[in-house]
């Protein structure tokens, strides 16, 4: 006689636990995805974000909440499903997640900036990217906006007259430095600084930022190799520029890094054909 209600109770508890575990699973997968993304393990991170999205989807179907929609939105953001992420953040807002509306708004702005850029309205898109990199509290949006903004602003700066160009480069450098202050662990921000210092022929600073970028990690093999080439370029620049004593000092530091990276000579990174 008690068997049925008992079974129901067990089932209810089990289903309840399953719901809890969907959100928990979603959060765990998202965290694992972030860890893999930080190590630039793109394939692994995408698989984790997919799983996080699926688990969050199961959760919002059974037990919608601000938290579940937020995790779903974050996973969609990492998968570059902009429209879906925007909708999830709005849902999260409706379920009490206060930042949801602002995040959805920032995503909509990012979409707008991309469209402006595609239609050739560089100046307007640059303004929106600038706004996002100053205001957005979503790391992946800040990083994407930073990439887009600096590339576009650098391109524009290089077209200016010498004096104007110097001013624009200074301002851009400050922006890139602020980004590093916001997220010290992002190698790409140091890569950007290294590139800007390179334009200013400040080889020592460019070298130091490139070393930091290399140590922190870079988003693709091509950018990683370009960063190594920048290191070699700075080495050659400093060889011409420094007084003998300063050069000796720099060389001993350079040789330390070479040993750490297993470079056999100062101008040949390990990936380069011999």
């Amino acid at each position, binding site marked *: 006689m008690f068997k049925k209600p008992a079974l129901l109770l067990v089932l209810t508890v089990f289903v309840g636990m399953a719901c809890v575990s969907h959100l928990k699973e979603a959060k765990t997968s998202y965290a694992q995805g972030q860890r893999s993304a930080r190590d630039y*393990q793109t*394939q692994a991170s995408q698989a984790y974000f997919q799983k996080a999205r699926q688990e969050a989807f199961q959760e919002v179907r059974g037990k919608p909440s601000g938290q579940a929609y937020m995790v779903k939105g974050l996973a969609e953001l990492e998968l570059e499903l902009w429209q879906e992420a925007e909708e999830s953040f709005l849902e999260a807002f409706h379920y009490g997640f206060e930042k949801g509306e602002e995040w959805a708004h920032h995503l909509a702005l990012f979409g707008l900036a991309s469209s402006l850029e595609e239609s050739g309205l560089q100046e307007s898109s640059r303004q929106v990217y600038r706004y996002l990199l100053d205001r957005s509290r979503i790391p992946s949006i800040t990083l994407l906006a930073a990439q887009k903004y600096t590339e576009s602003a650098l391109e524009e700066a290089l077209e200016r007259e010498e004096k104007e160009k110097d001013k624009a480069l200074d301002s851009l450098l400050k922006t890139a430095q602020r980004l590093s202050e916001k997220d010290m662990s992002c190698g790409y921000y140091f890569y950007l600084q290294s590139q800007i210092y390179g334009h200013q022929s400040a080889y020592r600073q460019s070298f130091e930022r490139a070393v930091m970028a290399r140590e922190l990690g870079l988003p693709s*093999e091509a950018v990683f*190799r370009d960063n190594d080439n920048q290191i070699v370029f700075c080495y050659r620049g400093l060889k011409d520029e420094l007084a003998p004593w300063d050069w000796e000092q720099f060389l001993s530091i350079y040789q330390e890094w070479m040993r750490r990276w297993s470079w056999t000579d100062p101008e040949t990174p390990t*990936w380069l054909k011999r």
Partner: protein
Amino acid sequence: MKREELEQVVEQALTFLAQILPGSISLYFPLLSVALTWAVKRSLAWEEEIFAWQVWPNPEWIRTKSDMFILDFFQSKPELNSHFRAEIDNRDLDALRSAFSRLYPIMGLEDPFLCALFYPELEKSDLAALLSTFDTRVEEAKADIKSIPERPRLLEGLRAFAEEAISLGIEAMSQKEIQKLILDVLKRDINNKDV
């Protein structure tokens, strides 16, 4: 490591590519090279790296490299230094920048796909031919890759090929030796079909 076994693995991979990309023989060598290169390097983003060359010749970040960096690139490589002597002497940065966007992925970043695609020109140091055909050939390669209906199957096949080659000890070979092995089998394959 037995060369015959490796050749057999390459032959199987060529048969597979002939099924999946029947009209694009020019892509067989670059695809097999790139699959092996990133597998040997244990690249964590293997799939992305296979298709990473598709951003060239004009990724955003390359347009903003400094003039001094570009000059240094042309001056520091003897073959470029002699070919672009006049442009370097005249500081003709428009001409150098335009050539840079095509030569840098190959001679600066050593992109394995592009290095294989332009292998004949690089072997002959024929920079003029490389530059004049770069855009067309990269666009053709992009279009061919885009037209594959079963991209996951292509990746699966390339991965299986790379794993088998690694299990036979291909890691002990240099990139050049690997490329030569693939080319030898490919040439033999084409000759056999002609006969």
